[in-house]
């Protein structure tokens, strides 16, 4: 019954579950079976709207966040049947409809069911819906996975909008002049990387803000200054460090390690955030839920990894001491090691992606995905 309130966000349930299973990388007994994949695919097909995009449930209107969750679930399923169901053309139309285009005249409307609260360069999250950084991130990410980012109307003005959302604290807020928050910062930074416009904000200030969000006593991160720790920030904050490394061309690490205390995050997660009957929790004495299971573990995966920038961009044959996989593991040994997650997409690194475009090609999801688009 607790999931009734997610009845309008059903693709997220699939995404959190498939991500968690992928990360854990356990034996075949615990992987997603083919018949289960078929069912997920069939259900998501019901959630796809004929005007484009995926909705939170089979009878609802399309929603950008649900679309992101649906598309990434299909990527997680890692099979051609999954990718086939996505309608690229209508998805593009859907995203363009929700974008506040640069040449739009100022908006005056008395009907509340038609009002827009967007500013130029930003996206509504569904028709007549709210506008914030999540919509931007999900749109660009879907655009990247489906190879739609060549469309200038989609990209126009977004970098500028994001630059207005960087606050005096250094992080990025939901709207201009808001308070910097981890989720929105990860969304904004990832969006800028996808647009290849990271010079629009000050990366050093993002780094300074993020570094200070790690709490000395608990070891985990908070989401805003002077707030409490929460294991889901393992991912939202941790990904920021890896994304900064990408944006700063491999210079945002110290001897390969991220610029936060990785062992402390691992300690917090493994010792404080495991529910005794399964699942991950926000902080001790909370209930387990799928959202925290997914993000605490994605974050744990980042905390267990080191920079791969040199190998992927500079020298394929580079094999320095930075690549010691156990270097960052708490205790130095392997049973807790998760599969590596990609900080941009929050899907597993090693998945092969059929590039959903004409002609179809296979690429590994990695830094290489956007690198090759240059």
């Amino acid at each position, binding site marked *: 019954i607790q999931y009734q309130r997610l*009845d309008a966000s059903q693709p997220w349930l699939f995404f959190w579950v498939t991500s968690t299973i992928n990360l854990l990388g356990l034996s075949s007994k615990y992987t997603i079976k083919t018949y289960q994949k078929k069912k997920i695919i069939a259900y998501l097909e019901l959630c796809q709207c004929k005007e484009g995009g995926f909705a939170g449930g*089979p009878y609802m209107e399309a929603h950008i966040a649900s679309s992101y969750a649906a598309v990434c679930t299909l990527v997680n399923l890692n099979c051609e049947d999954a990718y086939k169901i996505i309608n690229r053309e209508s998805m593009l139309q859907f995203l363009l409809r929700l974008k506040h285009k640069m040449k739009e005249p100022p908006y005056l409307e008395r009907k*509340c069911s038609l009002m827009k609260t967007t500013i130029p360069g930003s996206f509504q999250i569904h028709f007549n819906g709210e506008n914030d950084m999540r919509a931007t991130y999900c749109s660009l990410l879907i655009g990247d996975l489906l190879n739609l980012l060549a469309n200038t109307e989609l990209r126009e003005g977004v970098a500028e909008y994001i630059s207005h959302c960087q606050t005096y604290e*250094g992080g990025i807020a939901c709207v201009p002049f808001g308070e910097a928050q981890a989720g929105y910062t990860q969304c904004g930074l990832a969006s800028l990387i996808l647009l290849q416009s990271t010079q629009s904000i000050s990366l050093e200030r993002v780094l300074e803000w993020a570094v200070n969000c790690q709490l000395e006593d608990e070891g985990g991160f908070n989401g805003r200054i002077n707030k409490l720790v929460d294991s889901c920030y393992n991912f939202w904050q941790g990904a920021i460090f890896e994304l900064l490394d990408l944006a700063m061309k491999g210079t945002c690490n110290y001897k390969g390690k991220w610029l936060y205390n990785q062992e402390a995050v691992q300690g917090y997660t493994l010792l404080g955030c495991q529910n005794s009957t399964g699942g991950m929790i926000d902080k001790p004495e909370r209930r387990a839920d799928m959202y925290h299971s997914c993000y605490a573990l994605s974050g744990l995966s980042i905390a267990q990894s080191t920079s791969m920038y040199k190998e992927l961009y500079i020298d394929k044959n580079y094999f320095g001491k930075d690549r010691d996989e156990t270097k960052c593991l708490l205790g130095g040994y392997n049973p807790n090691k998760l599969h590596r997650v990609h900080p941009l997409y929050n899907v597993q690194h090693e998945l092969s992606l059929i590039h959903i475009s004409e002609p179809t090609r296979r690429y590994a999801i990695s830094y290489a995905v956007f690198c090759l688009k240059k």
Partner: protein
Amino acid sequence: YQRRVHGDYQEIMIKEVEGEWAPTERLAQFEPEAPIAPIDYSEKFKTIMDIFRYALKIDEVSLRAYRLTAAVIFLNSGNYTAWYVRRKCLDSLPELKDKVKEEIEYLDIIAHDMAKVYQYWHHRRLIVQKFGSLPPNEYALLEKFHEEDDKNYHMWTYRMWMTEQFHLWDAEYKRVTAKIEENPKNNSAWSYRYFLQFHHTEYIKIGSAEIDFAKSYILKDPNNESAWVYYKGIVYFSPSKCVGDKAANASLAEKFKAEGELFCLKIRSSVTDNRFCRSFLVDIYKEKKETAKSAIDICIELIEVDKIRKNYWLWMKDKILLSFPEKQQYEKSQHQYY
């Protein structure tokens, strides 16, 4: 008490809503055999949602649809389509033409469960926009939310919109000053203050006073991160973003940095192990060749004082060295850090 009364009211309301729709006016959710991730719905939920699906299919916009959305929202406040249908009803039905105020009252009544619901805040904003002026009860409501959670992100974002829309700058300034006094570590309040003060006022007019404000709170509690970040933000972030001639702003900022140096040195000598003053000093010193060595020295202090951020300070130290190569000789002879 209000929750219980409200709960009873909702139960009655749901029965009434059910009664308005014939038993044939339902559309069940498509449930394949053995669904893959079934949500455990209650009977009440299934009935109302079946009716709602039917209403969506025939695209009904009517008074009974309007009442139906209240039931759906009660059962699942995240159902964004229900909120949208509600707005459509308010816009198109002649009976609801003058009922915007009643809608706001409805939102006030259901407010206690809606603190973290995106859709609620968005809907409220659109309704108040349609209403056209500041509703009389608005502040009282925001204060109630503030009491429950003084850092509610939606509430603060809404507050920002409200201030801009209805030009409440001066009144809000008094309120935010009081809120910071109440809870000096409420970063949302500091962020809101920044919004009020720097949104359209010139940097040269407001910078110094705001820095003094931040300093007063730092002196009360040198570990108040919000106050320090506010101070540093005014010095490093605002000059290029704020209203006014950028060159004049920049030179004022230089003056602030010089004052800041003295302030931080004072804190460093009087408060043990304070990482904030040291971090600010690193920012000030690392910009110039003459003071690069001091910057490096403080990074090394911070490796001890701010242990959790050790990797960051090691990286920072190396970065400063790289930008001032002459200092590398000094580094080799003096410090051995791995």
